[in-house]
């Protein structure tokens, strides 16, 4: 974003959100196993751990353990197979949680440091990567535990950035890096040492109507309602969200939805927002908050008054759907929902 763009619109690549991570972050992940995890038989991979493992062995173990990387939802084995095609120079462990309330990646890192670092070293040696580091989000205030700057020779790099930071941070890293989630590394460590199949996922259960918010190591497949009962509900939630407070997907029926490998968090919110009657008072806060430097207020007006051509000329297609404008809007208007659904409709129309 050029200086002139900041001068003109005052937009500064997004805003800092208060993270409110605290009660869940410092408590270790509590186990919440169901029968499936307890009865899962360990498998024998037959390699001896004393010698350094090479790429083929690691992918084989990952395949046998069915590890799914929660950073991007792909199977770890498939990811490792694709890597030999291009030279890997950096291996990075992703522990960035820039969504408020969510700490499902930073929590296992803090409480299982040695195992995760060990798995990271195996991976880095297997791929002869020049450098390896753990990426952690920097702008987290009011934390009880101190985040170390080095975990036995592996550097913990504090990545700094405004809200939709995870996509942009990893985009700047370039294409020859292998990014693996911390939970996947932990499962890889367990598969290598104890030969355990991945049957659990790390989920943060948080929100303003949860009595004691915490991180749970949950068996994959347990329904969300059991999670909520496990953590206790002080109020009747207005809605339950899965996958982060800013971007999540609304869960309409908690009994039927199950925890998947890459669910990062389950949130229950109670909102006493009466039927909001304000319309836009033109304060211009969404223009400053938009990370791509668009004018959400004018886009919203163009879309609601069906001036699509004007909306496209104002940059409707550049909207990355980060919903910071709706977060910041004092009149509680659903700017990002209207704009991104309009963008969706427009792209479908152009495809036909």
């Amino acid at each position, binding site marked *: 974003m050029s200086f002139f763009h900041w001068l003109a619109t005052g937009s500064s690549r997004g805003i800092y959100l208060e993270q409110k991570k605290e009660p869940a972050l410092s408590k270790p992940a509590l186990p919440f196993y169901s029968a499936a995890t307890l009865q899962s038989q360990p498998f024998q991979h037959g390699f001896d751990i004393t010698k350094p493992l090479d790429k083929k062995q690691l992918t084989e173990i990952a395949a046998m353990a069915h590890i799914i990387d929660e950073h991007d939802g792909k199977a770890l084995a498939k990811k490792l197979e694709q890597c030999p095609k291009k030279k890997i120079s950096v291996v990075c462990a992703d522990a960035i949680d820039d969504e*408020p309330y969510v700490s499902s990646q930073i929590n296992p890192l803090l409480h299982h440091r040695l195992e995760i670092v060990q798995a990271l070293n195996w991976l880095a040696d297997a791929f002869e990567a020049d450098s390896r580091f753990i990426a952690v989000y920097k702008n987290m205030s009011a934390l009880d535990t101190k985040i170390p700057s080095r975990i036995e020779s592996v550097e913990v790099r504090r990545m700094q950035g405004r809200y939709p930071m995870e996509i942009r941070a990893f985009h700047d890293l370039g294409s020859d890096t292998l990014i693996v989630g911390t939970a996947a590394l932990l499962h890889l460590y367990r598969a290598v040492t104890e030969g355990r199949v991945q049957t659990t996922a790390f989920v943060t259960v948080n929100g303003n109507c949860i009595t004691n918010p915490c991180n749970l190591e949950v068996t994959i497949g347990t329904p969300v309602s059991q999670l909520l009962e496990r953590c206790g509900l002080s109020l009747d939630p207005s809605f339950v969200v899965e996958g982060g407070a800013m*971007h999540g997907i609304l869960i309409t029926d908690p009994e039927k939805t199950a925890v998947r490998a890459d669910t990062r968090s389950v949130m229950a919110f109670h909102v006493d927002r009466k039927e909001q009657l304000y319309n836009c008072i033109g304060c211009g806060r969404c223009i400053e908050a938009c990370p791509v430097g668009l004018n959400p207020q004018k886009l919203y007006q163009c879309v609601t008054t069906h001036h699509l051509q004007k909306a496209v000329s104002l940059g409707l297609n550049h909207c990355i759907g980060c919903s910071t404008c709706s977060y910041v809007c004092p009149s509680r208007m659903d700017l990002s929902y209207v704009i991104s659904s309009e963008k969706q409709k427009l792209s479908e129309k152009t495809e036909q």
Partner: protein
Amino acid sequence: MNSTIHHAPYIRHTESSRTIMSDAAIALVPLYFMSYFYYGSRVLLVGGVSILTCLICDWICGYLLQRKLNLRDLSAAVTGIIISMMVPPAVPLYVVVAADLFAILVCKAPFGGTGKNLFNPAAGGLAFATICWSNQMFLYTQPLQRLPMQLDETVTYLQGPTATLKLGGIPRLGLTELLLGNFPGPLGSTFTLIILACLIYLIARRAIKWYLPVSFLIPVAMIAAYNHPFGVSPLESVANELFAGSLLFVAVYMLTDPATTPKYNISRILYGICAGILTMVFRYISPLEMSAVFAILLMNALAPAFDCFCEWLLPKMQPVNNETALDEGGNQQ
């Protein structure tokens, strides 16, 4: 789960538009204390009547327009306070009520209610009252005199310093009187120190942008310093211009109304500068004393033009990183 559909960001910023309205109201209320100290209880009568008429009018129009009565929408109260601040303390009540009715019924309701008005309703109401009853609007009383609730003959009407300024005279007012507002002037808009304090409060609460009032006051100060009357030093003429009368009040409260100012930084600065120049042009040409209100009304009409100018300028001024902005936005999707 209740039935209303909730969309993407499930948490919202703590600040709501109620807090923004209450910020503006909070920034205005201390002026009432000072004017009560100067002019007695009539001030509260005028303020109360003005706020009440504005609120009731706005609620009725709100009901007629959107069929949804939103009793918590206080933006009309802010308009009422601003109008009651700019009228003289001994003004007959029908002038204030007429200004309020014009402000809400003509300047705000037909355009669509709170956020959609094109002109600042307070500016519209005051301009209407100034043109209709210009003599009642400029008859002030000496401060520190208790005004009776009902106007009777004991009230002495005086000319304010702006009248002497208009005739080219030199109002010999010391700096302390100017800062404290201890001269015959409008009800609440002459207390410079309190207005500056409220300006800092508003800037701290991010309700207004600091460069809008500043970019308005700089051209006014320059023009005032440039053609100062013969026997007066430029600095004193600037002080007379800014603080003797309601110019500072207009700069802090009416110019920065969020709905009617342009939205981009550069267009805001241009808007402030043009408003300043226009105020001085109006001040020298028009026979009326208080001309800032008319300049603001005219500039509100041009505010969308500044926005469009800024939108036209943006792609032009960054040909180089146009691609990066494009592909940065593009491949993130």
